[in-house]
Structures are given as structure tokens and as C-alpha cells.
């Protein structure tokens, strides 16, 4: 039996490792994506002051600190039995949109997008942000840097720091906005709306108008028929900051819908010996191993999961794109892993439109941004991190210290699906022991689409991730090495 070990040398060094096992015919028998890191936040949160949690847990991920900051703050609202004033909720959501603007731009232009914008079969050395700039033009490159920075700046104005913010408090937020800040933010948002629309047009021109790319999106190795999960508002529209958790099946029908306070009745986690990450699944269906379909409890989260789990977007331009997305890709559910990229851009547009609604809201300059807290107890908070549903659950003692903490983070929700996508991509390309160079890119694209944040279980920004496949014969002797970006 041959073993192929893909050691992602760069961002995943120490953060992820893929091993592919071939059977005697040289076909893929199985593949494993291992996460070789754990930091133990749930343990060392015990005994900490509850109010420190939004800042402690933001250190789970420096790419998505705002998501943890507010999932944590919302868990504290619940634990201290306090409902923040509506202005505070709007300020938090506005900051959340700033975070989405920065994060989705980062992924599309720096990390995932190059596969499409430059091309899936372009030389590896060109499949990076520089390649995107070369193809789209230097002016576009400047716009990318500018708007990513706008997202960070909006977050910093509201949060004190973009990485890591400090404004979240049980019952509200520590800082309001003045008129000058509102003017600054308004200008940035208006520019971001144009940029989001430009990005969708770029995707349309380069990807959707190219039959070859559309065929890749719809090709077999990238299909995964799992359940989908995401937060929705009362109209079943996607919501990032608040709402009800909705799960749809492989055909887009509602499977279940629940308040986050009931998460433990619907979601469970499974432990394997070979990786430090846990695998979540729908409790009602059960853990059936790493497989998709109706009978397996595995679900997907993140941009594609959210769009599939909802029925629309709450803002006009994004909703138009939402409809076009399903018309183009053949209706609900879209099960193609590579559709994550398009879904991400639709969400970017939604984030900018929603940010504009919020900044124009007269209440946004209100200084009524905190309500007094009640007695400490137990609380659960949920947000949609850019990479998926994020749940913080705390039990406080009488002194307001953390007694127990449970965190279900975005990438954990996708761990099973990412593993399967990697395996299926490998199966799709490797046969009879023939491992072509294209294998690397196929596999890379499969899990890059998720924007896996393995610091939320370790985290990666694989900007043209170098991979190495070592093929060993049955005596474990190395007979072939394929390298990419090395």
C-alpha cells in the first residue's frame, strides 16, 4: 500500500497535514486532513473574569477576532440577564459589517480568488494576489488594498483596535460614535458598495462567462451533498450578527430551526484519535463517519452554507445576486464546494449594503449604549463568523467568574466537510497510482474554498499554499515527490 503525505509547508506547517492512502490498484482508499494543534481555551477560560472573555476569546483567531468578540459579548448579555440598548446592537452590527468587508476581501483577492481570477491551471507562481493584480490591473490592486484597509478602519473606530477589539461589554458597548466618525465611515462604506459590485462583475466576467471554469465548479470531485447551517432573520434572510439557526437539507428544505439556547439538542461533537479538531454533526441524524448525504449528520457552514440555509438576502442588490446565484447553478441546494467563492462575494455586497443602512440610521450617534447588568448566570451567544456559525456558551459563578466554557467555532463545524472535500478531490484525480501535478491544485482548491481558519482550530491563510506530495511504495521508500510553490 502506498501512502501519500501532503505536508502543506507554509501556513499549515504545524497547522495541517494531509495523508492519502492508496489501495493495491493505486486508487485512493482514504485521505485524512489532520489538525496538529490545540490551545485549550475552554480549560484556561475557567476562573477568568467573565468580562475578560470577549478579549480572551478574540485571541482564538486574529483574522476573525470580531466574530469571537461579539459571540462572547452576546453570551455575556445572556449570562448577566441584560438586553443592550438598540443603539448598542446597531453599533455592534456595524462593526461586524466592517469585519466582513475586510475578511471577505482578504479571502477573495489574496487567498481563494486567485484560483479563478488567474485560473485553476495557471502556473502556481502566478496564482496569488500579485497574479490577480497582473490580470485585473494595478488600479484594481490599489482598490483591493484600500478597501481591505477600510474594513479594518471601520472596525478600529468602533472597537478601539481592529485586532483585537475591546469595546464589547455585557449590556452594550464601551464607545459610541461622533458625527465626524459617522461621516468618515459613511464615505468608506459608500466606496465599499461600489467595490463589492465591481468584485461581482469581475467574477462574472472572468469566471461565469468562461464555460471551462463553470464546468470545474460543477464537476464531480467538488460536489458534497451535506446539510447546511446558518443564522437567519425572521424572514429567513441571511443574518451575520443575530437570528435563529436554520438547517436545510440537500434539496434546500428546512430540516430544523432553533434558538441558539437549544444548540446542544441539535448539535453534537465527535472526537477522533488522529486529529486535535473535533467534528460536529446534527444530533438527530447522528455521527455516521465522514460521509455526505441524508443519512449523515454532517453539515456545512460559511458563505455557501449560509446561502443554502436561507431563502434570500435582506438587502436589494445582494438579494438580486442571490437569485442569480441559484438560477445559474441549478437551484437549491448548491452543493458545489467551489461556489463558496461566489457566495462570499454576494455576502460582501450584503455587508456593505447593511453597513450603509446602519450608518444612516439616526440612532447610530446615540450615546445610550449600555444597560445595567443583572446577576451572573449562564449564557449562550451566537454569531455568523465569516467562516460559519460560531457559538460561545458560558456558565458563571456568583462572583462573575467563568465556571465552564464551551466553544463551537466556525471551522469545527466545517471540519467533516473539509475532510471529505479533500478526500474526494484526491479520489477524483488519482487513479492507478498516477499522481499528476494537477492533483495538488485540485486538493488545494477543495479546501481553500472553505477559507479554513485552523486557528479556530489552527487557521490558515494559504496564499498560494505550497504543497508537497510524497509518494511512498509499500516498503515506505520514497519514489516520487511532487512539489508546488516550493
Amino acid at each position, binding site marked *: 500500500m502506498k501512502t501519500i503525505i501532503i505536508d502543506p509547508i507554509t501556513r499549515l506547517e504545524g497547522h495541517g497535514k494531509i495523508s492519502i492512502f492508496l489501495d493495491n490498484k493505486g486508487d485512493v482508499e482514504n485521505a485524512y486532513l489532520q489538525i*496538529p494543534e490545540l490551545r*485549550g481555551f475552554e480549560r484556561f477560560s475557567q476562573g477568568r473574569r467573565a468580562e475578560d472573555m470577549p478579549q*480572551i476569546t478574540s485571541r482564538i483567531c486574529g483574522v476573525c477576532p470580531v466574530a469571537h468578540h461579539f459571540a462572547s459579548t452576546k453570551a455575556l448579555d445572556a449570562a448577566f440577564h441584560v438586553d443592550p440598548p438598540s443603539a448598542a446592537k446597531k453599533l455592534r452590527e456595524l462593526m461586524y459589517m466592517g469585519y466582513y468587508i475586510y475578511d471577505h476581501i482578504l479571502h477573495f483577492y489574496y487567498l481563494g480568488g486567485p484560483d479563478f481570477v488567474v485560473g485553476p491551471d495557471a502556473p502556481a507562481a502566478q496564482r496569488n494576489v500579485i497574479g490577480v493584480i497582473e490580470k485585473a490591473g494595478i488600479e484594481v490592486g490599489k482598490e483591493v488594498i484600500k478597501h481591505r484597509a477600510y474594513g479594518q478602519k471601520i472596525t478600529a473606530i468602533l472597537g478601539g483596535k481592529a485586532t483585537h477589539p475591546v469595546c464589547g461589554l455585557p449590556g452594550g458597548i*464601551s464607545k459610541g460614535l461622533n458625527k465626524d466618525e459617522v461621516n468618515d465611515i459613511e464615505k468608506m462604506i459608500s466606496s465599499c458598495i461600489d467595490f463589492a459590485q465591481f468584485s461581482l462583475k469581475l467574477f462574472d466576467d472572468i469566471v461565469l462567462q468562461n464555460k471551462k471554469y463553470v464546468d470545474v465548479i460543477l464537476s464531480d470531485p467538488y460536489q458534497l451533498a451535506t446539510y447546511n447551517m446558518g443564522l437567519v432573520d425572521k424572514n429567513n434572510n441571511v443574518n451575520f450578527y443575530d437570528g435563529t439557526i436554520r438547517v436545510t437539507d440537500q434539496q434546500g428544505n428546512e430540516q430544523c430551526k432553533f434558538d441558539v439556547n437549544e444548540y446542544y439538542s441539535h448539535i453534537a461533537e465527535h472526537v477522533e484519535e488522529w486529529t486535535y479538531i473535533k467534528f460536529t454533526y446534527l444530533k438527530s441524524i447522528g455521527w455516521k463517519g465522514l460521509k455526505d448525504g441524508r443519512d449523515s449528520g454532517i453539515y456545512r457552514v460559511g458563505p455557501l452554507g449560509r446561502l443554502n440555509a436561507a431563502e434570500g438576502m435582506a438587502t436589494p442588490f445582494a438579494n438580486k445576486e442571490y437569485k442569480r446565484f441559484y438560477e445559474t447553478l441549478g437551484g437549491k441546494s448548491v452543493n458545489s464546494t467551489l461556489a463558496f467563492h461566489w457566495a462570499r462575494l454576494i455576502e460582501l455586497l450584503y455587508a456593505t449594503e447593511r453597513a450603509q443602512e446602519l450608518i444612516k440610521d439616526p440612532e447610530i450617534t446615540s450615546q445610550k449604549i449600555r444597560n445595567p447588568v443583572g446577576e451572573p448566570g449562564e449564557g449562550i451567544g451566537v454569531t455568523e463568523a465569516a467562516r460559519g456559525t460560531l457559538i460561545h456558551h458560558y456558565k458563571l459563578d456568583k462572583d462573575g467568574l467563568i465556571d465552564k466554557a464551551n466553544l463551537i467555532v466556525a471551522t469545527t463545524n466545517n471540519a467533516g466537510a473539509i475532510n471529505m472535500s479533500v478526500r474526494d478531490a484526491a479520489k477524483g484525480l488519482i487513479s492507478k497510482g498516477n499522481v499528476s501535478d494537477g492533483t495538488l491544485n485540485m486538493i488545494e482548491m477543495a479546501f481553500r474554498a472553505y477559507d479554513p481558519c485552523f486557528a479556530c482550530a489552527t487557521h490558515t491563510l494559504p496564499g498560494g499554499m505550497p504543497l508537497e506530495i510524497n509518494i511512498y511504495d509499500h516498503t515506505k521508500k520514497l519514489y516520487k515527490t511532487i512539489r508546488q510553490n516550493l
Partner: protein
Amino acid sequence: MDKGKKISNKKPRFAFYWAASCGGCEIAVLDINEKILDVIGIADILFWPVAMDFKYKDIKAMKDNHIDVCFFNGAIRTEEQEHIAKLLRKKSKIMVAFGACAVGGGIPGLANVANKKEIFHTSYIENPSTDNPKKTVPKTKVAVKEGTLTLPEFYDTVKTLEQTVDVDYFLPGCPPTPDQIMTAVGAIVENKLPPKGSKIGPMKSVCDECRFEKSEKKITNIKRIYELEKWEEKCLLEQGVICLGPATRGGCSARCLDANMPCTGCNGPTPNSLDQGAKMISALASILGIEGEENMGDEDVQKLIDQVVDPVGTFYKYYLPDAIINRRVMNK
């Protein structure tokens, strides 16, 4: 390129790497925005995970000291991280501990209140949403149906970079600010580096950069931030909230205070102070009217300590592995 010459005589070779960290230090480097083009102009970046490809094999093949400056972020939590830190040390002339985790363990360093067994128990066994009747926990070597899979050992204790390899300079902060990063890069490029072992940052405290005025007013008791009924435009300590400003090095422009939140100490101890917690306890004693350690009776000390509900998390949030007391006694 002449390898034998000093850094100032050629374009220095930089490297960035991360261990047990959150990625925020990488984002901090991206957040210097257009200045990154200046950095690329004055230095060759051999590898930088966000923007460029990591060449681990190539690093192994490099001659010793091939890299001029390695900016290493993240704490040392696993066998693999220790291994890479040692390898990069060998290949780098100057090793910079970049950010709070590398300098002092950072937030992941708080895990030194527990050990591996307790952490595994919490994450994999007693966790309320985890269904694990067989009490499975990850192992370093696992036989699966098709072969064998390995994972790096998870250590009992989080270590700082300096506890693992020899470190030349320290750049604290969670994450370091763009200004701090550019100061360090400038000092390296112009060969104006301070003596080995220096922390790169201003010789002042966060209080010196804070917008709030101090009036030397005493307080009678400590409040939690959420207990403050209204925020006044004055020193948070004087409003009764623990703020680590007096015990923490400046250089951050007191940004947290600008957002009306207390300093939590991410920039590490003030210059000339070894232990951030000890310095803060002494500052607290003073503002609570307990003057001078030598005059503190047992009762006074107890009164003070009782009001601080979580001393470890309050005083050593980012630097526990580097503190005088760097971990809890190990449970077996």
C-alpha cells in the same frame, strides 16, 4: 550578495514565522498597508506566510545564519513548534520574538493554569456538547485502517520563545502596532539596534500615553468594568477599575483607553520592571491607600487580594509563562 558582511552592508533577508498564535500578528504586518512596499524595497523577504510561500525544505537546506532577521510569533505549545523554533534559530542571525505570545506566552500561555491531561479532559471528555462515551482523546501515533497517522506531542506547559531558543530582541504587544513594527524594521535596516536582549518599544508606560488625567485620588474598593454606572473622563483606576496602564509599557497610544476600556497589559512590563503583576499589585496597593509594601500588614494584603477576583488572569493575562510564577503546580 556578500554573506560575510554585516547586515547594514546589504539588503537584509527577513523571515516571518508563527507557532501557537492566532494569526493576528500576521494581520498586523498586513496592516502596515502600503508601507509593506517600503519593507519589500529595503529587505528581501525569504518567507512570509500571508503573502509569500514558505520554503520549509529550503530552510532546512540553508547554511546557518542565512536569514538575517527572523520575526517569530506565537508561543511554544507542541513538539513541532519547538522543533521549528530551533531550526529557525540556527538559520537566523537575529531572532526577534514578535508579539505577546512569543515574548511572554500570550493568551495561550494562560493554559499554564492547567496541564495536558486537564486540557484534554475539558475539550474532549467533559465538554457538554461532545458525545464521547469511549473517552477518546487524540494520540501522537494512531493506527487507522489504511496505515499510521502521527500528531505532534502536546506539552503540559506553554513556553516563551526565549525559554526555547536564544532570542536577540523582543517586540511585545497583542499584536504589535504598525508603528512598533516599523520602528523595529527601521532599527534593523539602519543597523541601529539596541543591545542584545532589548525590548523594542518606548521607555514609558501606557499611563504616559493615556488621554485621561490622573489626580492621585485614592479609592476604597475595586469595581468590575460592567459595574461602572457612568463613565467619567478620568483615570479608570481612580474610578475603581483595574487598569494595567501603570505596569505596562507604552507604544500603543493607549488605544484601548481611547475606547474607554482599561489596559489589560498586552505590551508587557514597563521598562526596568521585571514582573508586570508585581508592579501592578504595588500600584494597586498605593491607590487603595495601602502605602508601602513594608507597612502592609497581613490583613491589608488579604483585603487587597480578596478584591482581586482573578489575580492570574488580571495581572498575567499575556505574560504568565514569562512571570516569576510561570505556571500552577502540576497536577498529576
